[in-house]
């Protein structure tokens, strides 16, 4: 379980997350809506452990361990993985090498890459000149290799062309054990019950909901979690009245 209690975070001198409370139980996936600049990326980066996001109050724990001051690599080892919105380019480090790093050498990079239509990028420097959609596929490929228990997705559908959106959506669904394959050994109910992975998906547009089922939706507005309810309801509300309405709930 991921548990966030009264989390307050500063970036530089700016307070960007204010008194956040959040719980994601094993097998659950949550979706986070919010306008640009509301602090969504900051929340994920804080969970991942980026030191520039200074925790000034509250606590984050995962699997019963206090993460609040744990370095990034230890969080990764504990089972947290992230798909970035804007990952950095590292010259001389090939995509294939990244996949192997994620999989600790125990994965077949070629086979995984084929699944997300990314084979011809394996020999390229990671993120060097990748388009928006290519970055998403590269990030998913790394997550596929990593085998994390809590998967954080930062706007996985933004900048992705129509051709690839279902590929991305379905891959996320599979990663979160939310796909509905027919399995001769197990019923869908059993599969649902055995679902262990946790997901936290940031979306600005909500389009990802067409591909991935989620249990809970939240809205982040100006660093404050303003509502927690059924994801489709949030989506409909935002579609019809816009994020401007959120300000009234945030007070």
């Amino acid at each position, binding site marked *: 379980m991921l548990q966030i209690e009264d989390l307050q975070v500063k970036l530089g001198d700016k307070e960007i997350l204010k008194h956040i409370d959040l719980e994601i139980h094993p097998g659950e996936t949550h979706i986070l809506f919010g306008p640009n600049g509301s602090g969504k990326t900051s929340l994920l980066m804080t969970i*991942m452990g980026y030191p520039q996001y200074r925790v000034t109050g509250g606590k984050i724990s995962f699997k019963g361990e206090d993460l609040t001051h744990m*370095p990034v*690599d230890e*969080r990764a080892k504990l089972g947290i993985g992230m798909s970035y919105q804007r990952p950095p380019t590292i*010259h001389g480090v090939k995509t294939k090498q990244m996949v192997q790093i994620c999989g600790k050498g125990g994965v077949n990079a070629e086979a995984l890459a084929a699944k997300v239509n990314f084979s011809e990028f394996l020999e390229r420097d990671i993120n060097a000149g990748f388009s928006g959609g290519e970055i998403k596929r590269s990030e998913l490929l790394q997550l596929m290799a*990593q085998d994390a228990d809590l998967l954080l997705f930062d706007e996985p559908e933004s900048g992705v062309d129509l051709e690839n959106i279902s590929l991305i959506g379905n891959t996320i669904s599979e990663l979160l054990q939310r796909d509905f394959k027919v399995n001769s050994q197990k019923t869908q109910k059993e599969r649902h019950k055995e679902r262990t992975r946790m997901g936290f998906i940031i979306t600005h547009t909500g389009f990802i909901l067409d591909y991935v089922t989620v249990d809970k939706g939240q809205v982040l507005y100006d660093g404050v979690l303003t509502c927690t309810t059924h994801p489709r309801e949030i989506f409909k509300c935002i579609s019809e009245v816009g994020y401007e309405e959120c300000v009234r709930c945030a007070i």
Partner: protein
Amino acid sequence: MRDLNEKALEAKEKKAPIGPDIDLDAYESEAVAHEYVEDLRVLSEADKKRMILAGVDTEEKDRSGTFIQKDTVVVHAHSKQEGLEVIPIKDALKKHDWVQDYYWKLVAVDADKYTARAQLDLHNGYVIRALAGSEVIYPVQACMYLEKEGLSQNVHNIIVAEEGSELHIITGCATAAHLRRGLHVGISEFYVKKDAKLSFTMIHHWAEEMMVRARSVGVVEEGGLFLNNYICMRPVKSVQMYPTTHLVGKGAVARFYSLLVGSPVSEMDVGGRIFLKEPDTRAEIISRAITNGGNIIARGDLIGEVPGIKAHLECRGLILKGGAIHAIPELQGKVDGVEMSHEAAVGKIAQEEILYLMSRGLGEDEATATIVRGFLSVDIPGLPPQLKAEIDRAVEQSDKDMM
């Protein structure tokens, strides 16, 4: 010869325009006795170990010939392949008239006190030549080895790739494990004839108080290709070199790559200069410099003299643990219709890159090492796999030491 000596004498005290000045008298120069060996296996294990660090394999696996000079004398020189000549330069000057056509024809004997020294007190060096049309499949290896403390080793090398030939050379410069202080003065002249291809990979594996002054000039004729790689990742007190190449035939190409790691005591001033003198010539200079506390000056100078040339310069520096990197990229377009560009960047490792790798499960040190290795891994098209392997090995060794 008398002419050369006269000129050299005049330049005896002439300081080089760049690089710290060296007092040549502070080094010995008398001949050191070492026996010639027919069979490389008889070399001591200690020597072999040092040589292999500089890419020189005494088993001669995948090598087409070997030249080894220890201190002042040549201890081995032979070619295993037809169409390839590997000769000590002193023998070559005595026996072969053609060598005179190349000796001091590109490097000026009176350029500075170091060129003068190489003329007035030449120890030896090599002439390596691939005959017209021959293809030397495996690299030739040459080793300049220093064993005697406080010695100034003065060498002159001539490399000729005759018309239509293909030649690959790896030169390793190394010091015995115990050696601390010494000076290496090396003159090199490269001739890449019409449609010939020459790759020259130099790996330096010196000692903490070594001074190195190299003077090299090359000329590439029509359709020729000259690949010049320089790798220096070990401590050295001072290296200064600014190899120059002239592209004098239509379509000639030169590419320089250098990988430098500066340790706390090191002063490195390394550059490359390429003159593009004919249409359709191409030049590229790529350098990667990392400092762990040393000072590195990375120079590059491209001179486009006629329309229709293309040249690019790329200079990247990484400051890891103190020290300084000064990148000096220069472009000189002398006419309309030249296409020349450069990029230079000096900085420290981006924290964002380290964290990205850490979020994939690497520890901070591993993440840093991965980035450093990536930084140093430049693709060198046209380099034979054996030489690529030697460069990779040098990189691996160096980041083991760095971390």
